[in-house]
């Protein structure tokens, strides 16, 4: 039966997606020379004869990059190759000073791992290319009025992570990439900034009739530099392939560029135009044989990873899955949360809710550790709410003050008179409210219990929300001897 003909109209096709991620490592120096990594310095100031590809120079592998690579391999549950080798990937381009990129080919550093629901095919080390800037309208080298090369980036250590085609929607791809990003960030091996290119993602996309096992012809979507563009790009590509197949045409293997502004997908090169990279073992480098000590050191350097942490939050602290994931995937939130938890042992779920639904909207993407809100301060505030020392709405006001000015919640409450009204003060207010609402009193006495709300409302208005609703109700019932 020809593939595709079994599809029920309207049911659509199943997208099959694999990702290839390039991660710039935040090592002190470049992959194969001792130049410091560049962070926006003047062009061509972070270069040396080696990363400029001068004749006679030789690469020496960066031990810290190997360490980071091993950490990534282990964190992704991969098997570490006992002996992996570097290869030369040959092609001419002005951003490639040696005319070849040193990469890994048939024996990568690590393979066969898993992160979340997605299997990892391989993890390997390589070097980044330099940066080309093209003058002129085209923005590409062809048709450019002129092109200049900045070799500062050339030779930056990269780890390439390739997944198996285990992803089946743009949303899943985005969600998984967020987990990977959080994991790499937690490892402290990269800045993982997509906009700045320290995390870059290509997607291999194909479609097939649901329930079939064979893979369709894939197209490779290059370099989507945000989560949104990744998801939009995949959606656009899946739609394009569906249109082709429905029209009876075939998907051809090619490399594609997604333009996030226009939404257009254009071909960069077809399979026929694909480079023959003429890979062969890099004779200037010895095989990479991780010693037991190196593996031990990499293992010891692994922190608790986001997936494990989310699981622990759910299991041990009974947090809702979405809350647990938010705290775990944004490691800085999880750290803040756990510090607060340790400081004043408030209710874990209550505290989590304050962090995720109150603190995060006030801070946006900023790290709470950098904010004016101290973890122990938030913990005390949540404790005060639980102890009914302050009302929920007043506590939100206190958090607002803490976020903008800093300070201790008790002091803010005292200063601003936000303490829960109680005792004689509250009794007087209740007295006045009963007196002012004779009709409601009548209704209550007549058995209409919900009329008590009018009196509670009056108390709340007068205390500006500083009163505890339950306490006020109890007080009213007592006064009315109900």
């Amino acid at each position, binding site marked *: 039966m020809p593939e595709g003909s079994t599809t029920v109209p309207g049911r659509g096709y199943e997208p099959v997606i694999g990702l290839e991620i390039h991660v710039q490592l935040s090592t002190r120096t470049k992959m194969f020379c001792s130049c410091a990594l560049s962070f926006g310095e003047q062009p061509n100031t972070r270069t040396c*004869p080696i990363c*400029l*590809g*001068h*004749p*006679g*120079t*030789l*690469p*020496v*592998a960066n031990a810290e990059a190997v360490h980071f690579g091993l950490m990534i391999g282990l964190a992704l549950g991969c098997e570490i190759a006992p002996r992996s080798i570097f290869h*030369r990937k*040959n092609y*001419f381009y*002005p951003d490639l*000073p*040696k*005319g*070849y990129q040193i990469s890994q080919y048939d024996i990568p550093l690590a393979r066969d791992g898993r992160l979340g629901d997605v299997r990892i095919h391989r993890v390997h080390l390589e070097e980044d290319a330099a940066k080309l800037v093209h003058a002129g309208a085209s923005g590409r*080298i*062809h048709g450019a009025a002129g*092109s200049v*090369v900045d070799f500062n980036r050339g030779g930056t250590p990269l780890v390439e992570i390739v997944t198996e085609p285990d992803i089946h929607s743009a949303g899943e791809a985005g969600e998984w990439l967020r987990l990977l990003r959080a994991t790499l960030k937690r490892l402290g091996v990269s800045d993982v900034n997509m906009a700045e290119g320290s995390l870059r993602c290509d997607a291999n996309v194909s479609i097939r009739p649901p329930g079939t096992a064979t893979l369709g012809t894939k197209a490779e979507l290059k370099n989507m530099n945000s989560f949104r563009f990744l998801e939009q790009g995949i959606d656009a590509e899946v739609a394009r392939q569906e249109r082709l197949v429905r029209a009876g045409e075939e998907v051809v293997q090619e490399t594609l560029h997604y333009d996030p502004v226009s939404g257009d997908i254009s071909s960069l090169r077809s399979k026929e135009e694909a480079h*023959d990279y*003429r*890979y*062969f073992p890099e*004779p*200037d*480098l*010895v095989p990479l044989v991780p010693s037991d000590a190196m593996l031990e050191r990499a293992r010891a350097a692994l922190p608790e990873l986001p997936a494990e942490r989310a699981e622990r939050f759910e299991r041990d602290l009974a947090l809702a899955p979405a809350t647990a994931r938010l705290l775990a995937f944004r490691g800085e939130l999880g750290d803040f949360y756990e510090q607060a938890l340790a400081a004043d042992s408030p209710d874990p779920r209550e505290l989590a809710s304050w962090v995720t639904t109150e603190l995060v909207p006030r801070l946006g993407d900023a790290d709470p550790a950098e904010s004016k809100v101290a973890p122990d301060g938030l913990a005390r505030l949540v404790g005060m709410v639980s102890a009914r020392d302050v009302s929920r709405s007043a506590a939100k006001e206190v958090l607002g003050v803490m976020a903008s000015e800093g300070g201790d919640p008790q002091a803010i409450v005292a200063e601003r008179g936000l303490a829960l009204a109680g005792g004689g003060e509250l009794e007087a207010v209740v007295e006045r409210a009963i007196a002012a609402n004779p009709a409601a009193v009548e209704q209550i006495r007549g058995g209409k219990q919900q009329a008590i709300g009018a009196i509670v409302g009056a108390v709340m208005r007068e205390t500006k929300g500083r009163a505890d609703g339950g306490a006020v109700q109890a007080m009213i019932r007592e006064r009315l001897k109900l």
Partner: protein
Amino acid sequence: MSELLDLSAVQAVAAIGAGDVSAPELFDLYRARAADDELGAFLWVAEDAPPRADPQAPLAGVPLAVKDLFCVEDVPTTSGSRILEDYRPPYTATAVERLSTAGAPMLGKTNMDEFAMGSSNENSAFGPVRNPWALDRVPGGSSGGSAAAVAAGLAPWAIGTDTGGSIRQPAALCGLVGLKPTYGAVSRYGMIAFASSLDQCGPLTRDVTDAALLFRHMVGQDPCDSTSLEYPEPVASPSAERLDGLRFGVPPELTGEGLEAGVRAVFEQTLARIEELGGAVDEVSMPNTASGLSAYYVLAPAEASANLARFDGVRYGLRAGNGDLLSLYEETRAVGFGDEVKRRIMLGTYALSSGYYDAYYGRAQRVRTRIVEDFRAAFDAFDFVITPTSPTVAFKLGERTADPLAMYLSDFLAVPMSLAGIPAISIPGGLADGLPVGIQVAGPAFSENRLLDASFALERAIAFDGTAARA
């Protein structure tokens, strides 16, 4: 003057140390001779003697000729190629740096086959080199300039590089000692790469003692070269007088056909001398070594095709073309590279291309492994393997330029040792029709001390006289 010229480098070191000779005087003598070079051996000669040479330094200021593929900071370095005609490297090769630190200042840069690809020095973009033994003949290659310079007394000693015979074959054709060390013994950092898994640098000297001294100051691990290794023992000055108990294996696969009669005669004389000195000579079959040249001409061009990709006109060296990217690449490389370099880039690119990799590169690697095994087996039964260095004496300029295969055969005997990464030395065995014949002795990895010692004993017995070339 001529007395100074007659001193070997080691004798010169001693004379300077004793205060009998001054280093500047020696440097000036050789500088003047190098500047008057009529052989085409030098591409660049130092202007001035280095300031304040330390007479007590291990090499005492005895000047050194350096093959032009060693990068030396701010000194023209061409690797014999038009594409690097105006190139001045921003750094200095480790070997040159070490020798300079040990007290051997650079006298000049010597001519060579372009990117070390050749066996006659006729592939230099800057003209051929003449053999001082017969001016109408080649000095061998690719370190032809270094060999001619030392043989003619334009330099006391020199360093060259050997990928598939490029030190040993010119040493043989010029009546010198040439040592290709164990792969990894000397740092390759700063040597413009031809075939990285084979390239090694080593000394070209008048005698074995000079070679040992120069080699001693070249070896050692270099943090800039991952393939370099710490030399396992100090390099000693050779002193053996006899070869008692030493077993020399002669592989019939290499020494059977194709040797000139004069070369064979000198080789057989040498084997007889070995026995006179107490050594034993016997045949050792090394069936795969005859395939060495074929494997070499796949592997070396494959590596070269990548090593030479950096010469693209973007960052340094020659730039040609009309400003378009493709024309920049094509024109720069069309104008900058000579025919032999282009031939090898094409061979290597083809051997690595998709669909042919296994048939060529993969197969050649397997042959290489078998040759390594041949040597391992040979060294189980023998201390050394011995052959002539080159099947022929120096041939005439132009004689083989039209026939690349005939030229390649010149390295038939030298290539297997390169593929095995083992040390091999060429020493003068005598003359055939007035031209030097080299004898090659090879040993296991890091056996240089034993190799130098045995060569020293043999050298004394042979008593080769090279003064004719310095006339």
